[in-house]
């Protein structure tokens, strides 16, 4: 490899910053404006709704009388409504938005066929609206991560197929032959998801398989939505933004290859660790436990690669909102993955499996890692596609600290409370209601944490709305470092 090629493999296409290249990037960014914003803004609307549903569910768990008279707001409906709005409404749509932008940037093509993705976004939101209303009126399938009723999921699948077609088109049109790491992850996510979703829909909703095979398909699917859909998008974004913002190549090309392929090999075998102790043949669960432990390889590899790229540059966290969120996300990824390995061991699972510990773990992954990375990405992307800078630094701070502290306050106490709950349940001499009582303080703290997260979300949405209102105002060049020593916005472009 020539030295330019080596650099290309390590940096997201940023070898020199000549004016012609800048102009091309600006053109690509501008072409992304409407299609990317469509997904992102709808995603954030679902986030607000999902946060509200989460708060209602959380309060109900320590105050069961709260809003108890309405059937459609009963806990068993609000909880799946929350999950589906945040997973398919917020996380998936925002993830798609970020993916579209990254794909255009990395392939060096202006957004092709924007009509295709606009139709896709419309159908996605339509299908999801029908589905969430369906859950609330009682048509939930009660299959975790797949509660959206059967009459709504084909609409989502159709919409998703359009996104997949779009990504193949974009990939074929690419003007940059070099494939940067982020692209491996994004392409993989874009191709894995339809396979997962089609299998789950056919085998669980359309022509359900018999007995506990449903459970194995269910957890193969649900765990892979995390592992093969959100995780690669999140890792792809981290691989793009850390080098981009700190202006330094990633630590090691070979580790990134190893990390990618070991994730691809092992993650998809993990799902059945959700059934440890369950009524399944032992080999299935054993295979998943082994694969879960093997996840140490991609996790440690990626952790070294991300964190070592940051070494010596932590000072930049003070100035770049993108970097703050992304580095928080990268750390949460390492933690949640290690916790996931522990959870999949039989002896530990025996304690925590049916407890709130698992709920805390899920939030460390989907929120601490994925959501934070998406927020960080949006801080970078939105100013570039709208050519407007974020209006309020204070709101960015509220967003970051609300979410970061909220998440820590969510995960740490509830994980601990979950362990106590599990130990209590495994001691048959403790009456069940005593165990229930023991969980109450942790559940109340969780509601408090939820309020902090909600505060962060509102701050972000207000800031974004404000920015979008300014699209008609004067042009401000986007900057990488927003927070300067004096706390005012830096106006010079990086």
């Amino acid at each position, binding site marked *: 490899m020539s030295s330019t090629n080596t650099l290309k493999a390590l940096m997201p296409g940023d070898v020199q910053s000549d004016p012609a290249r800048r102009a091309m990037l600006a053109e690509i960014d501008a072409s992304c404006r409407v299609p990317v914003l469509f997904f992102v803004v709808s995603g954030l609307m679902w986030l607000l709704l999902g946060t509200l549903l989460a708060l209602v569910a959380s309060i*109900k*768990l320590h105050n*069961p*009388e709260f809003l108890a*008279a309405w059937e459609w707001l*009963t*806990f*068993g*409906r609000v*909880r*799946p409504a929350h999950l589906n709005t945040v997973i398919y409404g917020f996380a998936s749509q925002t993830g798609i938005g970020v993916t579209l932008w990254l794909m255009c940037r990395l392939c060096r093509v202006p957004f092709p066929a924007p009509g295709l993705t606009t139709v896709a976004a419309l159908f996605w939101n339509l299908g999801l609206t029908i589905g969430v209303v369906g859950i609330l009126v*009682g048509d939930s*399938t*009660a299959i975790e991560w797949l509660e959206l009723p059967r009459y709504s999921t084909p609409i989502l699948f159709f919409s998703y197929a359009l996104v997949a077609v779009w990504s193949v088109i974009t*990939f074929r049109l690419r003007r940059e032959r*070099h*494939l940067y790491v982020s692209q491996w992850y994004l*392409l993989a996510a874009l*191709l*894995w998801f339809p*396979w*997962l979703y089609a*299998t789950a829909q056919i*085998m669980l909703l359309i022509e*359900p*398989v*018999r*007995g*506990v*095979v*449903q459970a*194995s*398909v269910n957890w*193969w699917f649900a765990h*892979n939505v995390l592992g*093969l859909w959100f995780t690669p998008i999140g890792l792809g974004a981290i691989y793009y933004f850390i080098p981009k913002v700190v202006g330094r190549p990633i630590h090691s090309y070979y580790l990134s290859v190893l990390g990618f*392929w070991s994730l691809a*090999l092992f993650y*998809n*075998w993990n*799902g059945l660790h959700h059934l440890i*102790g*369950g*009524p399944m*043949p032992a080999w299935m669960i054993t*295979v*998943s436990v082994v694969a879960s432990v093997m996840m140490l390889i991609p996790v440690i590899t990626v952790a070294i690669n991300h964190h070592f790229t940051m070494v010596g540059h932590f000072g930049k966290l003070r100035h770049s909102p993108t970097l703050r969120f992304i580095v928080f996300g990268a750390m949460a990824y390492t933690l949640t993955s290690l916790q996931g390995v522990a959870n999949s061991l*039989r002896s530990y699972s025996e304690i925590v499996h*049916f*407890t*709130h510990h698992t*709920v805390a773990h899920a939030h460390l992954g989907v929120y601490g890692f994925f959501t934070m990375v998406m927020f960080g990405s949006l801080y970078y992307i939105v100013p570039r596609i709208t050519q407007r800078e974020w209006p309020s630094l204070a709101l960015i701070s509220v967003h970051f600290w609300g979410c970061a502290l909220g998440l820590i306050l969510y995960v740490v106490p509830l994980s601990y409370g979950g362990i106590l709950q599990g130990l209590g*349940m*495994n*001691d048959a001499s403790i009456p*069940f*209601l005593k165990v*229930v*009582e023991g969980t*109450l303080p942790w559940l109340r703290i969780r509601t408090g944490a939820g309020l902090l997260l909600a505060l962060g979300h509102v701050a972000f949405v207000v800031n974004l709305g404000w920015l979008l209102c300014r699209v008609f105002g004067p042009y401000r060049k986007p900057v990488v470092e927003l927070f300067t020593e004096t706390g005012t916005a830096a106006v010079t472009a990086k």
Partner: protein
Amino acid sequence: MNYGPLLFLGILFTLASSWVGLVLMPNRQLGALTANTSTNDTGVVVVYPQPRHGEAQQGAEHYRSLGCVYCHSQQVRPEGFGSDIERGWGRRRTVSRDYLYDKPVMLGTSRTGPDLTNIGERQSSHDWHYSHLYNPQITSKGSVMPPYPFLFEKRRVPASGPSSDALKLSGEFAVEDGWEVVPRPQARQLVEYLRSLKTTVDLPEAPLPKAAAVEE
């Protein structure tokens, strides 16, 4: 790694492996499972499990629709793994065959409430279930289970006298004189479903413990 086709193949091959291993193989192994026929001590032929019918099946639909699965599991872990059996959640572990006819299978991943695999044997009283569903605080003070008042109807006591299935409410839960609370059909069906939840039959792969079998 600049070679697109190789990347594509790798991406497809990796997922295909677990799709075969964790989706198709289990379906081959377990999809062909059938009910078990045995003769019990008194010489009666028992076929187990049996599909649910009528009210119990309608009740299963309410269980699904109301999301009871988010707080209740339906799986008993083996002896020595957790304390499911010591807690009286079942006399034996559950195995694949127990769920042959469940659609959807609601194993559950949360035990905010107790496991319900064997609730039909543990608690067979209609009255208990009705009071509990109407407001769990009546039977289980301090529970975090939601009340389900909408499964019941509050109405004037008919001229012919109080209905036989009216809830016996007293103290803070009592209703005004001249009124009564009766279960709607949904509550009735749900309770039939709960009462049908039992794993009291021996299976070759999961025998009932001998002591319990002798007590019968």
